[in-house]
């Protein structure tokens, strides 16, 4: 098998294992990453929601927020893990597609 084939299999394995990135923080009761809190969390910590933050934080509605389906915030880890794997798969399909396209365009201009 070619090296690129082996590496794609490796990426596939990482996709399947990706829910570990959801389950381990839950098991060890770790919160959000530093500086990635929502408005409510900031209010709890500082007593207020910064005005500019409030205005900007709702600017963009991602189609798969936090690597889950919309409205799945309260779902259990099993469902969230499923959504996480689906997100990883589609994310990688799109990213690989875009990167290949960028690579091909740059290569063409090189020739």
């Amino acid at each position: 098998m070619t090296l690129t084939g082996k590496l794609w299999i490796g990426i596939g394995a990482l996709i399947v294992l990706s829910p570990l990135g959801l389950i381990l923080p839950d098991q060890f009761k770790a919160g959000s990453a530093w500086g990635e809190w929502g408005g409510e969390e900031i209010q709890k910590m500082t007593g207020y929601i910064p005005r500019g933050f409030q205005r900007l934080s709702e600017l963009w509605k991602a189609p798969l927020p936090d690597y889950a389906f919309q409205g799945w915030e309260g779902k259990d880890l099993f469902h969230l893990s499923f959504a996480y794997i689906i997100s990883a798969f589609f994310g990688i399909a799109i990213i690989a597609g875009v990167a290949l396209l960028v690579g091909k365009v740059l290569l063409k201009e090189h020739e």
Partner: protein
Amino acid sequence: MHIPDGYLSPATCGIFGAVMIPIWTVASKAVKKTLNVRQVPFLAIGAAFSFVIMMFNVPIPGGSTGHAVGGVLVAILIGPWAACIAVTVALVIQALLFGDGGITAIGANCFNMAFVLPFAGYYVYTLISSGSPSGSGRRVIAAGAGAYAGICVAALCAGIEFGLQPLLYHTANGQALYCPYGLNVAVPAMVVGHLLVFGWVEVIVTALAVKYLQKQDAVFFEGGRS
């Protein structure tokens, strides 16, 4: 390390966007000059790897979480300019599709993770590995050291960007408008987490991958290939 929307002022976001435009321009020119057909798939694999490794959130028990970025590994394999492009693609899709990192903060996040991280890491790697044979253990150690330096310096940059906000942007009564924590809190929080925990994840991932690839295809580590 993905700064969300609302933590940086529009002016800060504009500055980092403006800084990234010439960097992206130079990156595409540099890659155009050196890219060959064989490397294109590695650009895609590098972007995909960076994206998926960032999904592996690692907990500090009872504290916060963080993750590796993979950008130093990509820089070692295809060069720092190509790594800049690969990680940028991953970060833009993360922001647009998954809301991981703000769309207004794309410039700042790309500066930290797609520019500072791969370049700092790559220079430490070349400094330590220069002159060593492609299959040598020194190269594995150099890759690990580069990974550690890259992610910790990137975290420092993010900490400074966060920490400057309340200094620059606050109401008359002292309430922050954007990130509420100043340099004295943001810099240690970002840097210590990466020095103690998340940096080591980057080290292990990078060193193991380099060790594996040395056996698979030593051409990655022969000088002059970028």
